[in-house]
């Protein structure tokens, strides 16, 4: 019995060491674990005022592999959604038949898919007139203007839209965005959106090491009502010396993977 206990203890230690090693790398750190992020940089401490600076990680909860439970579709939205053959969720098809522009062609994830799928660690940087969000996944960034400007009227669509932000109170930063490109999907279930999509993000800093993100989507062309896609998603602060991995879905790599799946279809 003692031998058995010793064996399991050693085996468990080895496994946990391997998992932990992937979370404490000085270079190419992949972020938190697959479960709820649990990293702390020190004892619990109050949130700083009007400051989201730092590297934040939702752990496995950020991935969103199955997609999001969306609001009912309008007829126009349903027709658009039927053209999406997704890797998971209600529109899931076998791998060779997936037509996700992100995974099969290396297109940008776009906004707000970057919040709803593969939300890996990201860094927030404040400048005098902007908040910058630097995402590990795709190695892309967003500019959120805080200089008081208004969102554009009838904007030319962009992969990552147009965003303005304001402090609702000392610990809640609210971002409003328009002008997204309807070629992108909302999530890994292939939920669609139109160019008319309006997005609200609410970042509530609960403590020094914890922040909550709520994302609300309003797109009356596609959905019969506004819906909450992320509801108080917990984000944990990573150590400031964390060097994040590159996680870039390149067109070259997508083509290599697509070639393998094509062999499956030809069988």
């Amino acid at each position: 019995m003692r031998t058995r206990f010793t064996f399991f203890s050693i085996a468990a230690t080895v496994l946990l060491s391997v998992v932990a090693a992937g979370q404490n790398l000085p270079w190419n750190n992949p972020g938190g674990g697959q479960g709820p992020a649990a990293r702390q940089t020190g004892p619990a401490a109050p949130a700083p005022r009007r400051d989201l600076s730092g590297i934040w990680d939702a752990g496995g909860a950020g991935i969103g592999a199955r997609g999001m439970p969306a609001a009912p579709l309008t007829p126009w939205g349903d027709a658009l959604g039927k053209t999406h053959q997704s890797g998971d969720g209600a529109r899931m098809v076998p791998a060779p038949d997936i037509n996700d522009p992100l995974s099969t062609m290396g297109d940008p994830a776009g906004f707000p898919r970057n919040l709803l799928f593969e939300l890996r660690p990201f860094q927030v940087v404040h400048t005098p007139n902007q908040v910058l969000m630097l995402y590990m996944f795709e190695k892309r960034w967003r500019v959120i203007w805080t200089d008081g400007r208004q969102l554009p009227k009838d904007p030319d669509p962009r992969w990552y839209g147009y965003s303005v932000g304001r402090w609702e109170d000392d610990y809640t930063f609210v971002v409003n965005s328009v002008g997204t490109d309807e070629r992108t999907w909302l999530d890994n279930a292939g939920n669609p959106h139109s160019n008319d999509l309006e997005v609200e993000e609410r970042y509530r800093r609960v403590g020094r090491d914890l922040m909550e993100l709520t994302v609300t989507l309003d797109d009356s062309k596609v959905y019969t009502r506004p819906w909450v896609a992320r509801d108080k998603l917990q984000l944990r602060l990573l150590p400031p010396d964390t060097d994040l991995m590159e996680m870039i879905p390149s067109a070259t790599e997508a083509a290599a993977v697509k070639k393998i799946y094509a062999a499956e279809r030809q069988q």
Partner: protein
Amino acid sequence: MKAKLLGVFLAAAGLLVASAPSFAHHGTASFDTTRDLTLKGTVTDWIWANPHCFLEFDAMDETGTVRNWAVEVSNPTDMTKRGWARGSFKAGDQITVNLQPVKNGAPIGRLRTVTLRDGSTLL
């Protein structure tokens, strides 16, 4: 006894790791989730890529035919968390692979565990 315990431990650990939502690109539509194959073979390529890494290897089936298999794991970020690396395999490595094949009989599948010639196992 020790081998049996190791098997139980690896199965439990594999279940723990496999249950994590790491296969983010696609679900199980392609795979025959009722089948489980163990093949001995020789590595021909190790593709370290998004959205999935692929281990390619030659293995002989029960009829004596050698087929080139391509088995997927998750992306480099998630595999790094599990202790895998771009240099984990090289062509010519002798391996034993436990996998879940696709439904249509193609030599493609989802890797569960791979054991190297020195006895070390990645999962």
